[in-house]
């Protein structure tokens, strides 16, 4: 099918707040306007992600962040690569999270626009693009390492190792609150929810936290979360885990937890637009909510080991331009561009194979949250995921604050077999897919 359209989740995009007006004001055309700079050449980078529809919250804010990134780079004179100066221009294509459209988009970006690198959200859409990547050798990035496999030699996951970083939140929570002994978990029954459930189960087991119920998997079409929450908290668990639910689910579930009088700990992968959740519930209720994605005005991001350039300023500019739209992916695609730019400069070339070679050559890279290693053969069949530290974030007085940075590799060294066991139980190991 080629088509998906307005029916798809107009209400879901309410979390983006100003969808129509934003589209009308700032997003008419998804390529950057050309700017005046001293660059000799322009290198084009493709942005192939959902910009409309229910998954747009994990695409559009990323493009907005990339536009800021490119503006900063271009204003500074561009990128020095191989003795020449390049301006960076993003070319967007809305794949609507549809594999067929993703394939058409990849074809356009590669064969018509001449991009040298394509960033994707991944997931279902990667499957539509995989053959194009095979045939063209184009370098792609994904936010979902579950797309990786031994044959995906031109695909990298340099920003987030979803869902493996979720172990850091559980580990930190267990250290800080050893009194929390029982947990329940719910997730949408889809490609994003299931590997995350497996990860949380492993993390809870590693932390000695007992699951009170089987994971509650709800249909992605669910709109009434009252019965879901009623069942979830029926045994009065110490912890309610919201897995990697879309914002459309996290918000109503949290509202239901509030309305049904839950008073325990909540942990989640994301809490996009958490200020709206605070408004709908209360500061007191949201106090202590643990998740994994910081606001970039956090002072903890100014530490020396952080590789993301000027995160506080980035956050400020982003919020000026797109108020109320900061989300989990706002900085991620931009951080991938930092890695790409460094690799292109190291390679002295913007060609995909040279950049990939330079990026992975010494087995390590500068992740946004500190130096990290190319890793993943054990879990994904290929060492194309950049893994290091990940922040644990908690809401305090209505504001997200980084509590600690925890090491994913260290956790994996201790509990890797546990993770593999749960991943295998859910059919999520690379050799169990498709």
């Amino acid at each position, binding site marked *: 099918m*080629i088509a998906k359209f307005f029916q798809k989740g107009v209400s879901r995009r309410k979390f983006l707040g100003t969808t129509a007006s934003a589209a009308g004001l700032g997003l008419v055309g998804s390529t950057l306007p050309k700017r005046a700079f001293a660059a000799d050449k322009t290198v084009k980078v493709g942005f192939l992600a959902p910009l409309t529809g229910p998954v747009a919250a994990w695409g559009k804010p990323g493009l907005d962040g990339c536009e800021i990134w490119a503006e900063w780079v271009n204003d500074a004179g561009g990128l020095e690569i191989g003795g020449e100066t390049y301006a960076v221009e993003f070319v967007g294509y809305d794949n609507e999270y549809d594999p067929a459209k993703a394939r058409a988009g990849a074809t*356009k970006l590669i064969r018509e626009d001449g991009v040298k690198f394509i960033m994707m959200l991944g997931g279902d859409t990667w499957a539509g693009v995989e053959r194009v990547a095979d045939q063209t050798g184009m370098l792609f990035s994904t936010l979902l390492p579950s797309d990786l496999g031994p044959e995906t030699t031109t695909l990298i996951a340099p920003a987030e190792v979803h869902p493996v970083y979720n172990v850091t939140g559980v580990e930190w929570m267990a250290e800080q609150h050893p009194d929390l002994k029982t947990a329940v978990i719910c997730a949408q029954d889809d490609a994003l929810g299931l590997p995350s459930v497996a990860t949380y189960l492993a993390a809870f087991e590693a932390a000695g936290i007992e699951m009170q119920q089987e994971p509650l998997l709800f249909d992605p079409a669910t709109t009434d979360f009252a019965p879901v929450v009623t069942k979830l908290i029926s045994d009065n668990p110490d912890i309610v885990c919201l897995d990697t639910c879309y914002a459309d689910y996290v918000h109503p579930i949290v509202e239901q937890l509030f309305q049904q009088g839950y008073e325990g700990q909540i942990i989640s992968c994301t809490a996009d637009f958490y200020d709206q959740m605070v408004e709908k519930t209360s500061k007191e209720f949201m106090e202590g909510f643990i998740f994994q994605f910081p606001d970039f005005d956090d002072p903890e991001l100014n530490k020396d080991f952080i590789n993301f350039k000027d995160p506080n300023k980035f956050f400020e500019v982003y919020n000026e331009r797109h108020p109320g739209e900061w989300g989990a992916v706002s900085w991620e695609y931009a951080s991938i561009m930092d890695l790409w730019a460094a690799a292109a400069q190291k390679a002295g070339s913007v060609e995909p194979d040279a950049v990939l070679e330079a990026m992975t050559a010494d087995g390590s890279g500068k992740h946004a949250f500190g130096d990290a290693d190319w890793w993943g053969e054990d879990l994904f069949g290929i060492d194309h995921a950049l893994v290091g530290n990940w922040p644990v974030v908690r809401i305090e007085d209505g504001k997200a604050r980084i509590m600690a940075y925890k090491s994913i590799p260290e956790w994996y060294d201790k509990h890797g077999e546990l993770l593999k066991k749960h991943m295998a139980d859910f059919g999520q190991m690379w050799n169990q897919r498709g």
Partner: protein
Amino acid sequence: MPRSLIHVLAWPLLGVFLIALPHVLSFSQQEILAYLVFNVLLVASYRLLTLTGEWSLGHVVIMGVGAYGSALYTKHFGVPVPVSMLLGAGTAALIAMVLSYPLFRMKGFYFLIGSFAAGEIIRLLWKRYREPFGGPKGLKRIDPMPDIDIGIWSFDFFEPVSYYYFALAVVAVCLWIMWRIERSPVGLTFHAVHWQDNLAESAGVNVRAYRTLAFVIASGFAGLSGALMAHYIGTINPTSFDVEQMVFVLTWAIVGGTATFYGPILGCVVLTILNEIVLREMGFEQMRPMIYGLVMILSVLFLPKGLESIVQRLVGRKPAPGALAEPTRMEDRA
């Protein structure tokens, strides 16, 4: 120019146009053209179903049955792709036959809801069972159509132009068969079942059997369109065949009109070009859902008989004899 001459020239000209078309398009437009061909078959098969007066909300799921069937036959049994496509279409028809027993105990709105429920059951089964359906992630790395060398012609079916020609040939044959069915006594009986079912029954027509026949044939063609899609994209998942996709098929049929054979096809072609090419090229990438919705509302308000009515006015003719029906619209069914 005499009408008969136009008629004689029209088909060869259309053929030349369709053969030449991909060569004047960009690469991404060629991709869209290939998908358009699958969708033309899908929406044309949907019209065949509506001839008997029943509108289904499960047609896209039936398309998915063909896609899953064809993919699984190649994956697990090593069946050659062209054969598996036909088997996928047959599987879709077979499933439709099974579904027809409960569904055709209902009519009108109840059939509509029943077809939705049946479709959802099938879709949820795909999600529930990772073996063999792949669960929520669906099936990936579906075998592609094997490349073909015929003398000086070489067809690499990864390329959209090659696949377009292949799909065009398949769809042309299917459309011809559907057109012949509609013009045959069977097709006329479909119309009779729609508009005068009591009269038809009193004349000895087994109304339920004819409704079932239309449902099964339409499902077979829908299944074939799914199979064509699956082996081109290389991946399918339950979301690819959800009710949102069905809304598109309904939109194409409603905007195009269903009184003529070409009405839904026209709707599909015009709306796809608008959504995928015109709006994207104009830079309205992220406003497309809003504009697309607006166009649909305007067309329903100001073109209640669909785009086909414009064509009829231009060529100054009424619907063809085979299409006895007035435009069959959802609101008529209510």
